[in-house]
C-alpha cells in the first residue's frame, strides 16, 4: 500500500489561488449591465406559428396548498377544454404545460421561469398564496411574460405582467364591512392568521371602523396552521362584540369554528364574517359548526344564472357530481376565457399586444359580466355576502349594486389615505 498522502496547507493555498484565478477569469469575461443602465430585453421564444398555442398551469399539486390549488387546476383545464372544443383561440388549440408549485415560493419562481424560458408558453395561469405571487412577480416582469392570478388578495399591487381575476380589497372586504354596518354592527372583533393578507385586511378594517364609528374591541393573530383557539375564542366570547371578522387561513378555520361552537356561540348571537371560507372548506370544518355563518366572495355555486348553470354542470360532468365549485375556481376559469378573448381582440399572443388590448375585454362569467381594467389589470366584480346553509353550500343574502370597479390602491376612499403606498 502506498504511503497515504496528506494534504499540505501549501496545497490548500495553491488550490484556493487556482480557483480564485479561474473564477476571476470567468467573471471578468462576464460582467453585464449595472444599476441604472438598460438591460437588453429578453427575447421571447413563444412560437405560435403552428396549430397550437402553449400555456402554463402552475398550481401546487403537492404540499399543504395542494388541497385548494388542485381545484383551481381542474377549473383551468375545464376552461381550456371548452375553448378547444369551440375551435380554440385564433383557430389554434390551447396546449397546457402543467407544473407543480409544491406550495413553496422558490419552486413557484423556478417553475414559472421554466415555463417561460424552456416551454415558451404564451401565458401562465395559477398561483394561490400571496407568497407564491410575490415570488413569481419578478420572474414575469424580468422575462416580460404574463401571469393570470385567480385568488382574492390584499391589494396594493398592479404589475403590468399580472392579470388579477380574483377580488381586490374594495371588491370583498369593504363590501363585507358595508354589509355589517348596514345590519347594525357597532363593534367588531378581528381574528386572523399572522401573515400579510390578514394584516393588510385588518389595517383597512381599522381605518374603515375609525371613519364609520365602529368599535374594534379586539384584534388577534394566530400562527399560520395553528389549531389552538381556546384563548382567542374565550376572549371573543367575553368581548361582547356584535360580530367577528375572520381572516384565518387553512386548517386554523377548522379549529376556530369547532371551538366557537363548543363555547356555545352561534351565528344569531355573534355572526362571523369570513373571507377565506368557500364551498370546499365548509365540509372540512363540519356544517354543524358553521351553519348560519357568513362569508364574503364574488361567486357561489348557488348563483342562479345561465352561465353559472352551464359552468357547474360542465364541472360536475367532468369531475364528478360530488364536487363543488368555488370562487377561486371560477376566477381561474374566467382568467382563461379573459386571456383568450384578449388574444382574439389583439389578433396576437404577443405580451405587448395583450397588454395594449386588455382594457375593456369582458366575459359573461358565472358570477356575471367581468371586465378587465386596462390600467390596473384587475377585473370588475360583484360583491356578494353568502350565508352557509345546512346543505354545505353558500347562498347569497346580499349583493352590491352592480359590479364594483377594481381599486387595488384604495385611491377612491378618503378614509384609506394612510394605507396608500407609493407604487
Amino acid at each position: 500500500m502506498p504511503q497515504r498522502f496528506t494534504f499540505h496547507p501549501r496545497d490548500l493555498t495553491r488550490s484556493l489561488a487556482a480557483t480564485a484565478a479561474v473564477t476571476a477569469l470567468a467573471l471578468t469575461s462576464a460582467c453585464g449591465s449595472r444599476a441604472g443602465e438598460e438591460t437588453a430585453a429578453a427575447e421571447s421564444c413563444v412560437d405560435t406559428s403552428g396549430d397550437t398555442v402553449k400555456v402554463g398551469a402552475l398550481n401546487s399539486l403537492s404540499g399543504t396548498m395542494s388541497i385548494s390549488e388542485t381545484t383551481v387546476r381542474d377549473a383551468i383545464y375545464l376552461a381550456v377544454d371548452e375553448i378547444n372544443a369551440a375551435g380554440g383561440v385564433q383557430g389554434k388549440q390551447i396546449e397546457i404545460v402543467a407544473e407543480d408549485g409544491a406550495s413553496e415560493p422558490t419552486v413557484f419562481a423556478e417553475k414559472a421561469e421554466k415555463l417561460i424560458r424552456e416551454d415558451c408558453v404564451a401565458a401562465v395561469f395559477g398561483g394561490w398564496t400571496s407568497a407564491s405571487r410575490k415570488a413569481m412577480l419578478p420572474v414575469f416582469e424580468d422575462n416580460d411574460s404574463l401571469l393570470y392570478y385567480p385568488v382574492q388578495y390584499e391589494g396594493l399591487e398592479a404589475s403590468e405582467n399580472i392579470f388579477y381575476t380574483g377580488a381586490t380589497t374594495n371588491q370583498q372586504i369593504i363590501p363585507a364591512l358595508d354589509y355589517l354596518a348596514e345590519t347594525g354592527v357597532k363593534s367588531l372583533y378581528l381574528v386572523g392568521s399572522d401573515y400579510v393578507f390578514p394584516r393588510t385586511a385588518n389595517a383597512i378594517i381599522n381605518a374603515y371602523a375609525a371613519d364609520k364609528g365602529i368599535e374594534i374591541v379586539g384584534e388577534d393573530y394566530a400562527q399560520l396552521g395553528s389549531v389552538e383557539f381556546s384563548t382567542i375564542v374565550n376572549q371573543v366570547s367575553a368581548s361582547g362584540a356584535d360580530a367577528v371578522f375572520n381572516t384565518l387561513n387553512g386548517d386554523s378555520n377548522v379549529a376556530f369554528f369547532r371551538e366557537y361552537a363548543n363555547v356555545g356561540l352561534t351565528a344569531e348571537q355573534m355572526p362571523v364574517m369570513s373571507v377565506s371560507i368557500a364551498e370546499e372548506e365548509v365540509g372540512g370544518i363540519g356544517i354543524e359548526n358553521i351553519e348560519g355563518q357568513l362569508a364574503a366572495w364574488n361567486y357561489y355555486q348557488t348563483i342562479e344564472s345561465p352561465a353559472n348553470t352551464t359552468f357547474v354542470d360542465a364541472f360536475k360532468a367532468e369531475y364528478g357530481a360530488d364536487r363543488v365549485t368555488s370562487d377561486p375556481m371560477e376566477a381561474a376559469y374566467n382568467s382563461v376565457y379573459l386571456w383568450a378573448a384578449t388574444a382574439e381582440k389583439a389578433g396576437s399572443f404577443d405580451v405587448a399586444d395583450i397588454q395594449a388590448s386588455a382594457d375593456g375585454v369582458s366575459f359573461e362569467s358565472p358570477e356575471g359580466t367581468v371586465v378587465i381594467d386596462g390600467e390596473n389589470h384587475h377585473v370588475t366584480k360583484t360583491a356578494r355576502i353568502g350565508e352557509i346553509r345546512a346543505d354545505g353550500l353558500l347562498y347569497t343574502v346580499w349583493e352590491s349594486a352592480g359590479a364594483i370597479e377594481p381599486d387595488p390602491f384604495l385611491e377612491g376612499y378618503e378614509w384609506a389615505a394612510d394605507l396608500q403606498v407609493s407604487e
Partner: protein
Amino acid sequence: MSRFFATRAGVWSGFGAAALVLFGAAPLLLSGFRLGLLAQFLCYAIVAVGIGLAWGRGGMLTLGQGVFFGMGAYLMAMHMKMADAEFRNGHGAVPDFMELAGIRELPAYWVPFASPVFTIAMILVLPTGFAVLLGFAVFKRRVKGAYFAILSQALAGAFAILLIGQQSMGGFNGLSRFRYFFGYNLDDAVNQQMLYFIAAGVLLVVVAVALQLRRSRYGELLVAVRDAEERVRFLGYDAANIKVVAYAAAALFAAVAGAIFVPVVGIISPASIGIVPSIMFILGVAIGGRASLVGPVVGALAVAWAQTALSEQFPSAWTYAQGLLFIVVIALLPGGIASVAALTKRFQAKSATVEAAA
C-alpha cells in the same frame, strides 16, 4: 481508482476536471435557465459539504442547517432590498415590502445593511459566531446523538416561526423582488451567468477547505471524536473544541451558500429555511455518502436534479417517484452514491477470483 485520488496528482486532476465541467462544459451546454438552476443546486452542494464535515466526519447530525443558510440568505436579502430602495427613492428609503406592511420608518437594525462591506462581514461572522457560541454551550455539556439532532432541528423550526412573525423581515412572504446585486442588474443574462460562476467558484473553494480539514491532523482527530469520543478525551483532548470547529465551518459554508442563493433564486422566505429544507439538505448528503468528500456534493446535486426532473415529468405524482428513489438508494446503497465505486471494485475482484478458480 480511489487510490489515485488519494495522491497529490489525483487531487489536482480531480479539481481540474471539476473546474473544466463547471466553468467550461456547463455554461456551453446548458441554457440560461438551466444554468441558473444549476447555480441554485450548487448552493445546496455548498451546504452539503459542510454537513459532510460535521455529520460525516464529526458525527454531529445537524438537522438544522436551514438556520445558518437562512441567516446568510436574509442578511444578503436585507442588503439587496436596501440597495433597491436607495436606488429608487434615495438614501434611507423604506423597502417596498415594508410600505405594504404599513412600516413607514426604517427599523434601526436595517440601516447598516446599506453597506455592502458590512453585509459581507456580517454574512461571514454572524452565523459562524452563533454556531461557535451554540457549539460550546451544547458540546461542553456533552449533548450528542439524537439529543443534538433534535435540538438543531427545533432551532430551525423556531427560526422559521420567528421570521414569519416579523413583518419588518417580510414575514411569511419573505423577501423578494431584488433588482441589483452589488450594483449589477439581476435581469441581465450575463450577470446571471456571473452569479453561476461565483457559486461554482465558491463550491470549489469550500471543497478544497474541507479536503484540507480532512487530511490534516485535525481531520484525524475529528474522526476519532466521531468514533470514540471518550478515548479522545482520555488522551487529553477537549472533544468539544474539536467539534465546534467542524460545526462552525459547516455553519459558515451554509451561510455563504444562503447569501449566493438569494440573488440566484430571487426570493428567500421562511419556507426555504425551516425544518423541511433542513431535512432535504441532510437527505442529499445521506444519498451521496456522508463520509466521503465528493459524496455530499454529488448527493445534493442528484437530489435537487431528481426533484426538478421528476416534477417536470410527472407534475402530480413526482413526490411518490422521489420517495421511491430515496428508499431504493438508502436500501441498496447504505453508503450512498459514493460507495458505488467501492462496490463495483469489490464486484470486479469477486468475478476475477471466480474466473481464476474456473
